[in-house]
């Protein structure tokens, strides 16, 4: 089986600012994988998300979805991709049009409002049936992310790309949303690409992880392996820098 998504030598340069957001990135995503991408600011992970979704064009390299090239294709010709790959964005408020009702937002990928589908999706993400009538500002951050997820699931995609989906949420809500994502990925047999700066979160949700730094992938492998036996110095640095409660408490116990 050939990979679902193939990325080869992908580059994205912004001529005006002379910034090299991506400097030649290559990897494959197999169907059913939970592929994590970890990176800090400036790593190029957000640029990568846009390129995978056909919302931006690379300056070099290729992105292939089910054998079809996405790069170099005009946006209006990407309908085939839109029904197969959907994104859950980071900002729960910014990714929902404040002037649209929830049911219109959820059905946006479908092109028309389908109340039956809205009801199905609201149920799948754990929102009350009357949520469709309301506006985004009437919901909490966690609930808005559920709406975002419902929208992403509307066209029954094969791939869900989650771009920092829980970074803007409270700690106590993150677990719920992560569990929801994991559950939905299982239930609908989706492939997931999960982008985050937070190592811990990626570890919880993914089976494979690519570590990015300054536009390049510095390490790629099974999650447990990368975390337990990091090969690259940067990966080790990331793991070491992550604030650890256990370490902090240990220090408090033996003050020196």
């Amino acid at each position, binding site marked *: 089986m050939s990979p679902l998504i193939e990325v080869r030598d992908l580059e994205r340069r912004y001529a005006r600012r002379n910034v090299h957001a991506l400097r030649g990135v290559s990897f494959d995503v197999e169907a059913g994988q939970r592929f994590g991408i970890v990176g800090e600011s400036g790593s190029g992970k957000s640029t990568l998300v846009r390129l995978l979704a056909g*919302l931006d064009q690379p300056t070099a390299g290729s992105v292939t979805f089910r054998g079809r090239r996405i790069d170099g294709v005009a946006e209006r010709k990407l309908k085939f991709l839109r029904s197969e790959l959907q994104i859950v964005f980071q900002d729960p408020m910014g990714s929902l049009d404040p*002037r649209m009702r929830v049911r219109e937002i959820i059905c946006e990928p479908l092109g028309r409002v389908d109340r039956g589908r809205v009801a199905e999706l609201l149920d799948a993400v754990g929102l009350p049936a009357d949520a469709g009538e309301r506006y985004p500002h009437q919901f909490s951050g966690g609930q808005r992310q559920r709406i975002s997820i419902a929208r992403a699931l509307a066209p029954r995609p094969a791939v869900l790309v989650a771009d920092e989906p829980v970074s803007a949420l409270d700690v106590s809500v993150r677990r719920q949303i992560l569990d929801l994502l994991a559950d939905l990925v299982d239930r609908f047999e989706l492939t997931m690409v999960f982008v985050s700066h937070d190592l811990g979160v990626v570890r919880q949700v993914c089976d494979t992880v690519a570590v990015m730094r300054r536009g390049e992938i510095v390490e790629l492998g099974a999650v447990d392996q990368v975390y337990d036996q990091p090969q690259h110095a940067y990966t080790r640095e990331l793991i070491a820098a992550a604030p650890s409660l256990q370490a902090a408490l240990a220090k408090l116990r033996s003050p020196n």
Partner: protein
Amino acid sequence: MQTRTRRNTSVIVGAVLVGLVVLAALVSFFWTPHDPVKVNAAVRLLGPTGDHVFGTDKFGRDVASQIMVGARTTLYVGVVAVGIAAVIGTPLGILAGMSNRWLGEFVMRVNDLVLAFPALLLAIMFGAVYGASTLTAMVAIGIATVPSFARIARSGTLQVMSTEYVLAARSSGRSRPNIALRHVLPNISGLLIVQASVSFAIAVLAEAALSFLGFGTRPPTPSWGRMLQESQELLTVQPRLALVPGIAIALAVLGFNLLGDGLRDRFDPRLAVRK
């Protein structure tokens, strides 16, 4: 909540003021206390009396009647000029905001050309070709106001286009024209409403200047603006002749501004009453 009451007050006061202007204009079609254009030297420059509520002007014409008929001109000019500007300027601005850089810049530079062209000159040109009237003045002012709408529409569009929900719309497969209609327009409507109330004020005052120069409402048809200009020479002797139309203009402008603010808030679902 305090803000909600304040908002409701705005809408009500605005609506009342605008309503008064509209009422005066409508009623003037059927009745005015006196004939507004009838000259009567015998009753020149009278102060307010029972018969002439606001007195008379230097030609003996009843000020109150002029105010009522003048309300029509104010409404025509304000509404038509702003209407033209909005209908032409908004799509232009949205187009400029959604196009690639070069097209967007090109449209805005053409916009700047129009902006630089004095409305006055435009009105004179129209007047020369079609014969000066309220209509030529309105159209000229309308065209001259297009750039303000185009600019604000464009800047609002740029902001909306950079949001994540537009990104989500694109990734949902929405076409650009569709995005303009479903996402951009509703989200810049607030800006446009406020711009409309500002432009209304400017239009009314522009008409005043044009009328004075003879390129707007021709005498003897009453116009608040012209009344204001005509009162200048008697300002020290009969300030009332300036105050009455001046206050009328001020109240009309205030009314539209308040109404505009209130409407903008009413249409923002974020400020709507929670059920």
